[in-house]
């Protein structure tokens, strides 16, 4: 066997190679799809060792699968973490990340600008399970600090918020979290590890909806959790991880597995018990996506900048909330956290409110009207009537959404074509404005 040189390979190299070395039996160059529910044991002793976590072995694809593992390691590697655990969706990943470390009575401080589905999960599902949540303005570091309680066990925000385009001061919020011995979890879906690696700035856990830019093809739903391996889960505040686990015959995950303790518990207990595993076929498709992540993100960002500049100078547009524009209030944070670009998902506000928004979207020929982001295809949506529909008026305002807010996910098409289409839509929106039809957020939601 040739020993590998421990060179620190570049991001693009790792996007193609990390997580897979050609297997010894077939030499298959692509990552094979292990579409199997279960794995034959060598002998009874091996079976016992696998279930006792004394040996790294495959048992059942709800808990681990070699195709899924290649995807998990690749994302873990690109984020600079100890590893990853994949899930059937981003929300499944996020829920499992919570339930691995939290128990009834614990308190979470979260950004009020989180994705609507995350807000709903925290506000309703988590509260049903006895967790308390306080939402804060993510832009105010003192707001994070003021929301802390004795029971606060987690701070949670997004690298790039939606649809306000807020860029989080990750390092400052990480310092707030670590000051009370709590971890900071970051949803890095919109940035991807190509644009930002939150762990480098002090984040402890990173979650993704892989459905978005990681896949990039819009074919598959999936999620993944990465942990940095350096958070001290034995600091006295997390007996659920540090103490012997009744759900795993008395195993103390952090002491036994050290820097891999959280991820091991996430897999061996949370994934096992919640059951939202990623299918091997979806993992294969996400791996195809990751291979081209650097190339795609460069084009996504270039197109997003072009579209944002066009919108900014158009008379039908009230404001453009893209952190990548030079006059964005988030520019200092972009320079620090997102030097390669502020992503390709952002919102703008149309003059003319609800009717203008309706006409704009209906006129578009190239932009797809749907509830997703991060596809190779350009996407458009009206949040107040779709993704953020479950939010109350106050929550909508807190999330920075009005009746005329349009969210774009800028794809990989020819920039001139994207702008051509938007211009047609904006012309239609302007004609709506002359009719005097207008609306505010509360009417749209009602």
């Amino acid at each position, binding site marked *: 066997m040739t*020993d590998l040189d421990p060179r620190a390979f570049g991001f693009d190299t790792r996007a193609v190679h990390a997580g897979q070395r050609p297997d010894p039996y077939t030499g298959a160059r692509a990552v094979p799809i292990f579409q199997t529910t279960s794995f034959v044991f060598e002998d009874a002793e091996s079976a016992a*060792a696998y279930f006792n976590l004394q040996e790294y072995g*495959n048992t059942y694809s709800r808990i*681990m699968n070699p195709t899924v593992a290649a995807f998990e*390691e690749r994302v873990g590697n690109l984020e600079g973490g100890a590893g990853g655990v994949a899930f059937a969706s981003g929300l499944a990943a996020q829920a499992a990340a919570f339930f691995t470390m939290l128990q009834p009575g614990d308190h979470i401080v979260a950004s009020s600008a989180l994705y609507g589905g995350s807000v709903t999960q925290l506000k309703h599902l988590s509260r049903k399970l006895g967790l308390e949540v306080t939402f804060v303005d993510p832009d105010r570091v003192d707001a994070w600090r003021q929301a802390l309680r004795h029971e606060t066990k987690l701070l949670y925000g997004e690298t790039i918020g939606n649809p306000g385009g807020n860029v989080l001061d990750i390092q400052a919020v990480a310092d707030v979290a670590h000051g009370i011995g709590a971890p900071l979890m970051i949803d890095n879906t919109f940035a991807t590890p190509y644009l930002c690696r939150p762990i480098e700035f002090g984040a402890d856990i990173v979650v993704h909806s892989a459905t978005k830019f990681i896949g990039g093809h819009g074919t598959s739903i999936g999620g993944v959790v990465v942990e940095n391996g350096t958070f001290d889960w034995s600091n006295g505040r997390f007996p659920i991880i540090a103490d012997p686990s009744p759900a795993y015959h008395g195993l103390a995950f952090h*002491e*036994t597995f050290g820097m891999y303790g959280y991820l091991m518990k996430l897999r061996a207990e949370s994934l096992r018990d919640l059951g939202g595993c990623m299918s091997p076929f979806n993992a294969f498709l996400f791996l195809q996506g990751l291979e081209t992540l650097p190339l795609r993100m460069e084009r996504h960002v270039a197109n997003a900048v072009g579209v944002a500049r066009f919108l900014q100078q158009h008379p039908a547009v009230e404001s453009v909330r893209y952190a990548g524009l030079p006059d964005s209030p988030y520019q200092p944070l972009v320079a620090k956290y997102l030097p390669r670009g502020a992503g390709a998902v952002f919102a703008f506000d149309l003059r003319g409110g609800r009717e203008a928004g309706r006409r704009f979207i209906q006129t578009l020929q190239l932009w797809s009207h749907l509830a997703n982001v991060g596809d190779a295809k350009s996407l458009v949506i009206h949040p107040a009537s779709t993704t953020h529909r479950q939010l109350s008026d106050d929550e909508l305002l807190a999330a920075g959404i009005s009746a005329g807010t349009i969210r774009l996910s800028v794809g990989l098409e020819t920039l001139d074509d994207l702008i051509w289409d938007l211009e047609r839509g904006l012309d239609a929106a302007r004609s709506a404005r002359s009719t005097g039809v207008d609306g505010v957020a509360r009417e749209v939601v009602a």
Partner: protein
Amino acid sequence: MTETGVVCALPDRSSAAEIRKYQDPRVIRKILHTARTIAIVGLSSNVLRPSNFVGFYLQRHGYRIVPVNPRETEAVGEKAYASLKDVPFHVDVVDVFRAPQFVPEVAREAVEVGADALWLQFGVISGEGARIAEAGGLDVVMDRCMKVEHARNMGRMHWLGFNTGMVGAQRQATL
């Protein structure tokens, strides 16, 4: 003799650069490839202790494990010895699960018995112990888990989605 937990040990004043010096992948691989007999200082017979996980795993992968622990008579099916000096045969590696303040003494004994390498587990950080062993001609690894390094370099760590850091296009050797 109490076993040092992997995360509760108090490190000494070793600098990050000094710790990195004793984490050379070439040294780690040399030890993993050439060692046959591993004395584990602080090996517990309790199957839920980290040292037992490591001993059990390394034994499964073909190494002869020698428990060194005055509180045990036997662990992972092998006779335990009270100290390294009581082991009546050559050991290639001395793998240490003890609090850092005990490491210099273990290092002196490792030199005395003619071991080839001193391996200090996760959180077992002792610059003094490392220097003693190095001066005695031993290879030294510090703040690394022997099980993890075996699984990373020669095993199946990648099957559970951990970041092995191993990047290469060559066909892997048969496990």
